[in-house]
């Protein structure tokens, strides 16, 4: 019952956010491109334009137009890209797999490295390795993603020639999806971009996990677990880790947005054929429908991932699960 109520609330919230985003998207459309520009040439007279505007509903009140925009959007119609002359949604979704795989690879790197490294730094704070990790992490945080990307290209592609410098390599088509995970060339192309994308988030999470872990290790319940004579491994992984992960999950939810923002930078440097690269091109070409489609798709991704993160949090934290109120 409570879970259901929680879900309903969460979905309600998601719909609210999407409404706001769509409103932003619509205002952009309303103020930016003139749809007539693409439809008719320069030769059409002002009177004819006005007639056309009326017929297309461009002179309707704001909210009528917005409602129409919303209705179309829900049906998957976000307008036609000026440049590609194709439905904007289709153009964007075509690029979705590339971005998704990049984010997935970077997320895997972040999770697989930050958790053990953070734990290690928390339990052996004086160890030379831990100090090294902490020192490197502050340097890592201080290097902007696009610089990591540039210098990794410079080092590994230009100087050493180990890695391809741009693009996605060979991809395999699986229905409407295309993946670089299945070819050696595709994986090789993924290494540098994924590393660059994870480069800021990784030290951030190492530090976060370390900090939370050290705080948890000082709590009375960890001391009690130690006083019970439990094996240090159990104290660490069963008692401390779960409590450490609660705030980490919350931050993770917030950071997903930043990660997607960084894909724009990474994809630009590596010319990775994903949504971010496409978006920047669209910005330069003032391809309004594509810009709006990108904003809405990205908004949707945020909302979905945040909802999933919330559900995971609820699952891990029994206090929310039962009472529904943070205790």
């Amino acid at each position, binding site marked *: 019952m409570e879970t259901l109520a929680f879900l309903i609330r969460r979905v309600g919230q998601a719909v609210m956010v999407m409404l706001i985003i769509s409103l932003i998207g619509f205002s952009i459309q309303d103020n930016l491109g003139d749809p007539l520009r693409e439809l008719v040439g320069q030769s059409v007279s002002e009177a004819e334009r006005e007639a056309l505007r009326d017929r297309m509903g461009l002179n309707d009140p704001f909210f009528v137009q917005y409602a129409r925009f919303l209705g179309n959007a829900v049906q998957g119609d976000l307008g036609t890209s000026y440049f590609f002359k194709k439905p904007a949604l289709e153009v964007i979704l075509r690029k979705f797999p590339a971005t998704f795989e990049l984010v997935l690879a970077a997320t895997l790197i972040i999770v697989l490295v930050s958790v053990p490294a953070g734990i290690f730094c928390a339990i052996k704070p004086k160890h030379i390795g831990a100090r090294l990790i902490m020192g490197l992490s502050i340097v890592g945080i201080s290097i902007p993603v696009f610089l990591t990307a540039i210098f990794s290209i410079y080092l590994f592609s230009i100087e050493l020639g180990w890695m391809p410098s741009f693009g996605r390599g060979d991809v395999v088509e699986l229905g409407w999806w295309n993946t670089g995970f299945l070819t050696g060339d595709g994986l090789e192309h993924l290494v540098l971009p994924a590393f660059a994308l994870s480069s800021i988030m990784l030290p951030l999470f190492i530090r976060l996990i370390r900090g939370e872990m050290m705080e948890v290790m000082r709590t009375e319940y960890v001391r009690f677990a130690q006083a019970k004579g439990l094996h240090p491994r159990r104290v660490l992984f069963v008692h401390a880790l779960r409590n450490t992960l609660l705030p980490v999950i919350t931050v993770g939810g*917030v950071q997903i947005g930043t990660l997607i923002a960084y894909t724009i930078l990474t994809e630009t440097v590596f010319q990775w054929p994903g949504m971010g690269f496409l978006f920047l091109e669209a910005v330069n070409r003032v391809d309004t429908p594509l810009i709006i489609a990108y904003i809405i798709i990205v908004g949707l991704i945020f909302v979905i991932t945040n909802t999933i993160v919330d559900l995971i949090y609820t699952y891990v934290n029994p206090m929310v699960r039962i009472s529904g109120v943070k205790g």
Partner: protein
Amino acid sequence: MSTLQRVWDSNFAYQFRRDPVAICSALVLLAFVLAALLAPWIAPQNPYDPLQLDLMNSKEPPAFGGQGNPDFPLGTDDQGRDLLSAILYGTGISLLIGIFAVMLQAVIGVSIGLVAGYMGGRVDSFFMRLADIQLSLSTLMVAIIALAVFQAAFGPQRYEDLAIFMLIVVIGIAEWPQYARTVRASVLAEREKEYVDAARVIGLSRARIMFRHILPNALTPILVISTVQVANAIVSEAALSFLGLGMPVTTPSLGSLIRSGFEFIFSGQWWITTFPSVVLIVLILAFNLLGDWLRDALNPKLYKET
């Protein structure tokens, strides 16, 4: 005992004196600020003045390699601009945008945080929900989209003139939730303390309690996040300029210098990108190290989700 003596003896100063990293970061920052302020006098040329640029001098390698022109110690970019001068001026622009953007963030964020924490109830819920949404959309994303739209709306020419102002405004507005949440969290924590009740028992007005009693106690976390926020703002500016949404090449910031050199890195002119990058990294690192130290030294209970 003088105030100065008290400051010197305080735990805070003691920890600062004992920490070489903190001292170094502070010195580096001081050097950067001085260099940027004195740029018009110490820079070999004025990189903004097209008359001083000569395309004949373009892509000169750094002088110390032995093959470059001694007039350009760090080499030149593709416009023939002296890199050292461009970096000195660019650092100034980056710092300017960073600091003003953070001031704007602080003004908006602290006000909203105070109001939300003080009024509570629906006002609080509304602002915090808004902050949640904006944070989860990521500040860089908000900035990219906003600037992309502005650029499309104004056209590239007019946008270039407005760029510095737009960057400050957009980065300033995009990051207010950090301040708002931090301030709200400390206001909520302080509001429950008994010294506030003591002030109420005296009969002091709510405004006086807020500003005289609660706010001074909420300042420590504001100070701590400010350092890191300046670093973040500078990174954001650099990222936006790198994407071509920020400072134009004619009045380059560090980010736009990096952008202008990026394409030449493949053809061997590594210095155009590398030198501004190193400066940018050192600058951010110094801010981050200082922020880290401040956090440890003052040890405030910061809002967790920063």
